[in-house]
């Protein structure tokens, strides 16, 4: 593969790399199994509580739909946006990747702002009743994950300032941020179904 003169040294480097392989993407996927089970535990607790209570949600703690629906659309679209970033980096287009990742981060922040706006305008708080307990803990916990996702994306953007840090062949960080973002998105779809759609319809 390499020229014969430098072959021994080069092979040393390659072997060394081979013996310390990079499995970060696989590691993240395995970790996300664990994360899903954490949300799974919350979902299970929520469904049990729902089944055990006569009226769900109790009077006066109905959810609002407009802002969360807009938020949902933003978050789902952002999954497509971030994928364009991934497509760009695979074509070695770092600037394109940066553009799409900036847009994704901004969409994530808009989502979080919408969530805060929703909290402030709901008229009931964490302690109001068992439904509001669930509502705030679950959406808050998800919001925390969105925040982590945004921070990951900003980390990618920070690192990509240096030319050559990411390329078509080396962009594990970019891929990991994207995978995590999709995960957060999927969890939101389940949450939105459980907390909003199935309590209103």
């Amino acid at each position, binding site marked *: 593969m390499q020229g014969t003169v430098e072959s021994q040294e080069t092979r*040393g480097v390659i072997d060394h790399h081979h013996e310390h392989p990079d499995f970060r993407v696989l*590691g993240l996927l*395995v970790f996300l199994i664990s994360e899903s089970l954490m949300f799974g*535990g919350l979902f*299970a607790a929520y469904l049990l509580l729902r089944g055990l209570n006569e009226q769900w949600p109790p009077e006066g703690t109905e959810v609002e739909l407009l802002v969360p629906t807009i938020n949902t659309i933003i978050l789902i679209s952002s999954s497509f946006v971030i994928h364009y970033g991934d497509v760009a980096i695979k074509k070695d287009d770092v600037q394109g990747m940066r553009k799409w990742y900036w847009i994704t981060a901004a969409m994530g922040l808009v989502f979080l702002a919408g969530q805060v706006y929703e909290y402030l305008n709901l008229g009931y708080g964490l302690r109001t009743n068992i439904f509001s307990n669930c509502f705030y803990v679950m959406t808050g916990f998800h919001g925390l994950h969105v925040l982590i996702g945004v921070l990951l994306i900003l980390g990618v953007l920070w690192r990509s300032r240096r030319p050559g840090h990411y390329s078509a062949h080396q962009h594990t960080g970019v891929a990991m941020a994207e995978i995590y973002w999709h995960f957060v998105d999927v969890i939101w779809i389940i949450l939105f179904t459980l907390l909003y759609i199935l309590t209103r319809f």
Partner: protein
Amino acid sequence: MAQAQLPLDTPLSLPEHPKAWKWYDYFTFNVDHKVIGIQYLVTAFIFYLIGGLMAVAMRTELATANSDFIDPNLYNAFLTNHGTIMIFLWIVPAAIGGFGNYLVPLMVGARDMAFPRLNALAFWLNPPAGALLLASFLFGGAQAGWTSYPPLSTITATTAQSMWILAIVLVGTSSIMGSVNFIVTIWKMKVPSMRWDQLPLFCWATLATSLLALVSTPVLAAGLILLLFDINFGTSFFKPDAGGNVVIYQHLFWFYSHPAVYLMILPIFGIMSEVIPIHARKPIFGYWAIAYSSLAICCVGLFVWVHHMFTSGTPPWMRMFFTISTLIVAVPTGVKIFSWVATLWGGKIRLNSAMLFAIGLLSMFVLGGLSGVTLGTAPVDIHVHDTYYVVAHFHYVLFGGSVFGLYAGIYHWFPKMTGRLLNEPLGIAHFVLTLVGTNLTFLPMHELGLKGMPRRVAMYDPQFEPINVICTIGAFVLAFSVIPFLINVIWSWNKGKVAGDNPWGGLSLEWTTSSPPLIENWEVLPVVTKGPYDFGGIVHRPVMDEDDDEDE
């Protein structure tokens, strides 16, 4: 690139490594899996001693029927933290963190774990968790038992209870990080020459354990987060007066905490599958049966948790289902036990300390397993629920099983870790004291439980006093049994007989490197030519003392 500067006559272009770590490296954020393994083992053992002292204090209190030695609240705090420390800071980190980290890369022929820095981080979450638990005594100590069922946990010693929750979330995070690391390492980092049927059974066990920890730990975390909110932020997830439900906590808790039993015993089964064939000088009986039974326990073990809740208003169909699933777990466990017995059968057994502990485990664990089967059936369980019968059962499993296995592992791999053999007479004294102490402490508890003595209480009906005195004497024997072990380890580490690379004539890859192994484990990665248990047949003559062992 850096290699370009090397002189031309450098034989290999591998980078130069220092040959060994210094003592102070063990107190740093070191990413070498062997350092992390030792860090786990030593830290865990310190917590074992702390948890053991709590147990001795409790047994001293229980020597008489009245509360006369320690304050009942302190008794509750000891009770809670004894269980918590022994599970979360001794057995789990020692078995998976300690032996897993030390052995898995060596056994699969890797230079390190897949994610070394994550690995170091996982270890360094443990000391703060332990410190939190110990510091919680300043606030009275958590009172609600290691299960921390609400409402008890939401109304007693709430500050200490919150610290307890944070400590468990920390070790849980550590455990998840470790699991990710093990799964990827075993899955992807075997040396290319190793087939799946040449993977040592300890690695299969670690893989099963990691899968189990990966899916069950986060559910406990979810439950504990809700509990934390209930205690501190005025929610009512587990408060029935405001629409909550306490049984939901029990489900979330046991969904983790029953598999936690397998987290504590599966790696030990792995240790058994290494120790027994090597010291019986025979190929393991039923390699695939043992490997698959680990995975079977991992799968079935996720669906048995309600057998802890037969008295929590569980509907009959659920009792039926979970009784059956619980009894099914006994099958893969039995497969392992019989495979080990068959391995021993006709072997050329070396009765050294490691093997003594392994055989001790076999007998103790069978007792624990049998009482487990009786407890798993709903009718018996409802009768003896929350009595000393349960205490007797799980101590036979966790002490007679897990702790014996950890000791077997320490005697077996200490030469690899330190380069020196442990002293045999001291080891045998340790074994005899431990075996006698275990049975003296825990066997009479079966009778106490069947007669109806409730667990978790500092005061009891005076009619139980004579049997309790026996248990307390046993507890003191157990406490003293640690002394020869400690002397042995400290003395042998410095002055013990030099072991050589392969003192037991093992065939798995960890015996192909030096003792203690080099940093990065091998100069050149080994090539697997035969399975880890291919003893006999073609005579294998490892470099070892002549006085011992002729392979048949």
